[in-house]
């Protein structure tokens, strides 16, 4: 028979630590509380030790990691609040609700800081969509779930990515990011301060749904996971809309000392975290907690992950004021306990004490912290070997282009974002399908640009370099909009940290992100770690998703990726090298996932980003697009799509033709300018020693690429647009 601590996911050593802390054996409730709080999902016990690699402080950082969400200053007393979170395992077994509640949870994290949520982004990864009905079912359910929640609550879903790879066959990734806006002097934190203040509960009643969700997220998926559907919560976006409006109205009254959402580990986590950040102690009575079902045990009340609930710390004597505002929104607020100064989290059932533990022993400061063993996996060196000579070049590049443009990873994701209301709140200036979404900040001239990014094939082949590339590519996306990159929220999705090769991937990735963030002066202000993304047969490719925000001081100057007018000059900034390693082309056309990932030169990268920003600011560019998955040829095609404008490109190169077209060399941009602006632009590029080449002109209705005076690609833009737009729907049907 398994030991009681094993049933709650703890080790013998961890159990001993609890006994030592308490000076006695824990009772069942206490053991369960430790079980959920010390799960990887809540405590980051395997990952915390590595976070020192991240830059987390800077002159714009108002709140770094450790709170419900991070906050970055955008000037004029305004700040952006943001966080990303995973809901991978719930979405694997119950895609609609798993994804929907992922969105609901991250929205609560944002308004728990006092901010008004203004945008949602989602980064999704699925398995082989071309050969699996299950994958199609997951895609359909996850997208509908995100749409169902975000559309109903009325927060636009403005950007994100959808990627496909076999490694996600049994374990999809659903990472949702929420962004909010706040004035500096209205920032709230999840603090239970002021001994004697009331602890109030508001929102949905507590049911038996989502029991042990945090623990479920902290083990690998197995055949039996399907039976864990009860660990998946059910979302009610309408309830959350009311909760959001009620909370923001409450914060205006000054009666609220702190607030905290009830997320993973439910009441247990909300109580111990607010207590640990505040006076240190709290006493609550489970009998006062509104319940959905009869006969619930204290342990069920304490670890339920029912959605749409918040904990409020209310100034003593102002409870009725809180109640009346909450009731105006059709909700109820109940006092369930009070703040104490004795450092204990005491749970009562009526008069009876049913749990009594030091509050800070439960949260991440008291949880165990592991320095896991790591070991370079055998594949790492082996897969670096790539003999390009042995790879035949395609005979028909038009066909290769079409194959790439209609492939799952490169085709238009309109089928997805058309289901998301991306315009509600009328602030979305650049809509999905661009490098980054651009939102205006109402009442100011400012705008922000938002993106998520991660090339997991690069991260598999070289986690450190791949993760650094994810950060720089996210920054390039923002820069193309005219935004200065400010801060990062990272969604780190990996396999089991208990396996040394997986932990090596994680460690390398963290170091890579840290290095790139330091180079680009973009701090990591919040994030999420999701381990155990593996099934019995395989782990996912390491997928550190980088969510990034940038600032546009004058929204009227923002830039987009599309070619605008015939006759405009098209220029490539940066250098193209023979870097087909890990490319989409190599994978899709040749079935090879190997080689050295493209080299990243931070000096060049920074020089180019600064140049693009200044050129946009001076109004010299009519479009800017970063060159990423699929290389130069795909980037050019993407620029043509929106206005169905052709382009005539002439290139001279010593490289292989496929490398010229599809190499994924870093630090490259395709820009266009009016013929009149060319001289000034060229002068500036020469002066600042920016490597560039004039490629040709926006002209006609065809995408034409000649290399060394030989035509290699000639495709009708309307035709490729139709194929590219329709490809996703074809995959789904």
């Amino acid at each position, binding site marked *: 028979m398994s030991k009681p601590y094993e049933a709650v996911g703890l080790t013998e050593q961890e159990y001993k630590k609890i006994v030592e802390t308490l000076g006695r054996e824990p009772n069942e409730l206490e053991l369960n509380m430790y079980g959920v709080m010390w799960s990887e999902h809540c405590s980051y016990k395997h990952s915390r030790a590595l976070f020192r690699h991240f830059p987390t402080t800077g002159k714009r950082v108002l709140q770094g990691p450790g709170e419900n969400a991070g906050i970055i200053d955008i000037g004029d007393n305004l700040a952006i609040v943001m966080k990303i979170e995973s809901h991978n395992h719930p979405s694997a077994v119950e895609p609609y609700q798993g994804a929907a509640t992922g969105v609901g949870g991250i929205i609560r994290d944002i308004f728990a800081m006092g901010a008004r949520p203004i945008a949602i982004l989602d980064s999704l990864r699925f398995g082989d969509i071309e050969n699996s009905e299950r994958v199609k079912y997951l895609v359909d359910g996850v997208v*509908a779930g995100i*749409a*169902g929640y975000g*559309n*109903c*609550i*009325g927060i636009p879903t403005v950007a994100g990515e959808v990627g496909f790879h076999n490694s996600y066959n049994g374990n999809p990734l659903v990472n949702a990011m929420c962004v909010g806006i706040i004035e500096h002097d209205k920032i709230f934190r999840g603090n239970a301060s002021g001994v004697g203040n009331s602890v109030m509960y508001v929102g949905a009643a507590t049911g038996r749904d989502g029991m042990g969700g945090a623990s479920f997220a902290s083990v690998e998926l197995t055949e039996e996971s399907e039976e864990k559907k009860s660990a998946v919560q059910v979302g*009610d*976006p*309408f*309830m959350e*809309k*009311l909760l959001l409006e009620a909370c923001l109205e409450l914060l205006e009254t000054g009666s609220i000392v702190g607030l905290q959402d009830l997320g993973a580990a439910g009441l247990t986590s909300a109580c111990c975290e607010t207590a640990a950040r505040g006076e240190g102690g709290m006493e609550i009575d489970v009998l006062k907690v509104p319940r959905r079902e009869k006969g619930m045990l204290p342990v069920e009340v304490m670890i339920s992950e029912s959605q749409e609930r918040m904990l409020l710390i209310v100034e003593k004597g102002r409870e009725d004021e809180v109640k009346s505002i909450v009731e105006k*929104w*059709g909700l109820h607020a109940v006092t369930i306990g009070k703040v104490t100064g004795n450092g204990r989290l005491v749970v009562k059932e009526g008069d009876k004490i049913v749990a009594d533990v030091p509050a800070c022993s439960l949260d991440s400061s008291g949880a165990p912290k592991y320095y896991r063993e790591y070991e370079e996996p055998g594949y790492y060196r082996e897969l670096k070997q790539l003999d390009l000579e042995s790879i035949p070049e395609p005979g028909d590049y038009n066909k290769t282009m079409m194959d790439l443009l209609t492939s799952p990873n490169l085709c238009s994701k309109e089928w997805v*974002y*058309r*289901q*998301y*209301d*991306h*315009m*509600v*709140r*009328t602030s*979305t*200036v650049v809509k999905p399908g661009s490098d980054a979404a651009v939102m*205006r900040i*109402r009442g100011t001239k400012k705008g922000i640009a938002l993106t998520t990014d991660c090339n997991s094939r690069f991260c598999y082949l070289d986690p450190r370099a791949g993760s650094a590339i994810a950060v720089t590519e996210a920054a390039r996306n923002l820069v193309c909009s005219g935004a200065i990159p400010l801060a990062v929220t990272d969604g780190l999705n990996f396999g089991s940290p208990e396996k040394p090769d997986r932990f090596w991937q994680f460690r390398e990735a963290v170091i890579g992100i840290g290095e790139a963030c330091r180079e680009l002066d973009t701090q990591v202000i919040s994030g999420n770690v999701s381990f155990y993304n593996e099934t019995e047969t395989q782990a996912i490719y390491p997928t550190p998703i980088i969510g990034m925000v940038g600032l546009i001081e004058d*929204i*009227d100057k923002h830039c987009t990726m599309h070619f605008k007018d015939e006759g405009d000059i098209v220029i490539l900034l940066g250098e193209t090298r023979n870097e087909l390693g890990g490319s989409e082309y190599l994978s899709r056309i040749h079935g090879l996932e190997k080689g050295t990932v493209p080299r990243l030169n931070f000096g060049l990268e920074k020089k180019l980003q600064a140049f693009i920003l200044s050129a946009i600011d001076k109004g010299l560019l009519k479009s800017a697009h970063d060159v990423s998955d699929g290389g130069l040829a795909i980037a050019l095609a993407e620029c043509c799509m929106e206005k169905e404008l052709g382009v005539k490109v002439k290139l001279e190169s010593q490289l292989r033709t496929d490398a010229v077209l599809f190499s994924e060399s870093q630090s490259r941009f395709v820009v266009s300018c009016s013929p009149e602006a060319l001289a000034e632009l060229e002068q500036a590029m020469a002066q600042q020693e920016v490597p560039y080449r004039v490629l040709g002109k926006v002209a006609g209705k065809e995408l034409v690429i000649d290399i060394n005076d030989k035509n290699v690609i000639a495709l009708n833009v309307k035709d490729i647009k139709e194929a590219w737009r329709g490809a996703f729907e074809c995959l789904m049907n």
Partner: protein
Amino acid sequence: MKFGVIVFPGSNCDIDCFHAVKDALGRDVEYIWHDDKELDGFDCIILPGGFSYGDYLRCGAVARFSRIMEAVKAHAASGKLVIGICNGFQILTEAGLLPGALVRNKNLKFICDTVPLRVETTDTPFTSLYKKGEIINIPIAHGEGNYVVDEETLRKMKENGQIVFSYVDNPNGSMENIAGVCNEQRNVLGMMPHPERVCEEILGNTDGLRLFESIVTALEGRR
């Protein structure tokens, strides 16, 4: 002249309508709580988009019982202007202020896109500044925008010119491509597309602004 935007629990385009009127149109506007009783002093009432009461039943089926709806009915009966956008349109059909009903989109999915509409009539206080037959681009964002109505009513609506907007490329399966309709008296308009989302150049176009300007023209002419 004053506009009012009703806030139901779950409304989420209330802020968009408010700002379209206040910032783009430059007119007075106030929010009105669903539990209020009076609409005195308002000239045009907007029922905004969103998911009133979560729309867990038929869309708008609960909101029509809100206390303010009695006042909206009286406001309409007195000949004053009412416009329901998206969820607001659904509520108006549920409340019996407009004919027909909105059911699930033909493809069973939520659709958010900017689509071309044809202005079918300019003989309403909401469309006088458009040209008849003009094509305008207005966003849609709905899961249940598929307009249905019985044959007899449809015949009458056509006769009376009550079809105000139609889709150029039917996105949701609506009968006769219907995107917006008015009542017989022509003072109540319901439409699934969102004119309030395209009232400023920075949001893509200003095709929606002329709808609000038409209202101003009608109200000013009346004085």
